[in-house]
């Protein structure tokens, strides 16, 4: 094989390697959307003035802060536990939203989840604060706190979000990875995400 042939082949291989990696990323996410367990999560406005930055809406989740008492093994010093994986078991409530009923740090929850429960994986942010009931709550990040919107469409949603409850329809993979599936305004699905 000539040197020039080899160079072209190498270039094609590099390109296919990168494209293959990107394709693998897409396939992984699409698989969660297709096969993942569907849950409805309640969204709380993060900060009415700072909801929209650029063309995405920042989302704060009800399950984004989990009472310390729900953790089987809460970290002694929360500031040193930043980035540690957290597994939160959520269960469907009568209003349709899924809420936290138990949690662990580091290892997945040992007992299997009941049919109307699912374990969602996140990571500790390293912060805690007392909730409205004065009980300490640990902040957990699930990597789903942004919803990208078509340019200019965020403002209306930002306003509506303050006055009535919004929800995120999420798909949860077998390993607990969460993936946004749709943005819900009460019962109406505002945006639904196709796998591709």
């Amino acid at each position, binding site marked *: 094989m000539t040197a020039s042939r080899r*160079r072209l082949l190498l270039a094609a291989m590099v390109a296919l390697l990168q494209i293959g990696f990107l394709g693998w990323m897409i396939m992984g996410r699409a698989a969660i959307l297709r096969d993942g367990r569907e849950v409805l999560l309640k969204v709380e406005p993060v900060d009415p003035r700072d909801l929209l930055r650029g063309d995405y809406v920042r989302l704060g989740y009800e399950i984004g802060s989990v009472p310390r008492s729900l953790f089987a093994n809460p970290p002694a010093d929360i500031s040193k536990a930043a980035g540690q994986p957290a597994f939160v078991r959520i269960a469907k409530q009568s209003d349709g939203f899924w809420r936290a009923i138990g949690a662990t740090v580091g290892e997945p929850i040992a007992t299997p989840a009941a049919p109307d429960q699912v374990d969602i994986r996140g990571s500790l942010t390293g912060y805690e604060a007392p909730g409205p009931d004065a009980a300490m709550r640990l902040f957990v990040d699930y990597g789903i706190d942004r919803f*990208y919107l078509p340019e200019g469409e965020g403002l209306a949603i930002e306003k509506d979000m303050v006055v009535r409850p919004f929800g995120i329809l999420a798909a949860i993979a077998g390993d607990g990875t969460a993936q946004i599936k749709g943005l819900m305004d009460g019962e109406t699905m505002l945006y639904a*995400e196709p796998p591709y």
Partner: protein
Amino acid sequence: MANYAEKVRLDIERWVASGLVDRATGDRLAIEIVKTAPRAFTFGSVLAAMAAILLGASVLVFIAANWEAIPRIVRVLALFALIFGSYVGGALLKERGSGFGEALYLLGAVAFGGSIALIGQMYHLSGDETEAILVWCIGTAVAAAGLRSPMLTNAAVLLAITWLLMRTGDWGRSAGFPYFYLVLAAALWAISYWTRSMAARHILLLSISLYAVLFGFSFVFSDDFATFGVVGAALAILATIVFFAAHNFPEDVERYAQLGGPAPAHSLIAFVVGIAMVQVKVYDQFGLMLLATLVAFAGIVTALLLRGRQSALMRWIAYAAFTVELAFLYFVTLGALIDTAALFLFSGLALAGVAFFIMRLERRFGTRPVEGAAS
């Protein structure tokens, strides 16, 4: 480097004119210098690279802004086609010796990074920018090694430093200090030999000072100033060792580091940064502070005396460091020893002293300040 060849060519003409060398020797020298001088950065290739970055940015912004108008699958496939076309097209152009080859490689790397961002947008992934930069960096490094591209090596080094800064700046999320940067830097250093990218090695060397400062700061955030000072001292000691190694064994260091000549300027910068970290730690203990400052001055003057003659860059770094040190010392003693009036008096006298010292050095090196500034 182009400057160097140009400068020697002018020198040869002057020598021929003044009869120092005959015309035949002069011509042979001129040919020799053109042959051996490293292939220069041409303006054309620099502009082509800038064009590639602009083109890449325009495609990405266009896709991001009009994301409803074009189905997402089309956007993804268009980016994949751009990646493939850029790498293969770049290889074809390089085959023909065109300066656009490296620029197209760069466009491919930008398209790869853009694809990662687009996938993040498609699936509403949040909090992954730092990881995305790391993935982009590794992908670019793999492409640099596969295509033997110096431009992509430099791009990967800049992405690695960006990742280091984002990772350490992101206190809320960060899980520990990014020690992985050292692995990344070592890998990129190794790749830079293969891709013959001297610039990548220079940037990596400078990034060590940055890494040390960030590493020190990771202790400051838990109020551990002692370790901050120790990290600074370690950096200064390491810099001193490297400086003397580069000064005493220039051929050996050059054979391994291949930096285009011994480059102790990096180690002087690292030394000054390290001492500054120590000074921040001991600023309220006058004795230790004075000691650290004297060590700093001694280091700067040593660097100037040993290497100042060869390197204009070294002289300017040394002068800047000297002046900053002096200013720092005055700031620290202000509250304790002298009032503001005395500070102005002493600053004026000190500046005059620095000027006198610099003039003495300039005379010793036989350079006039104007020429030093130009070189």
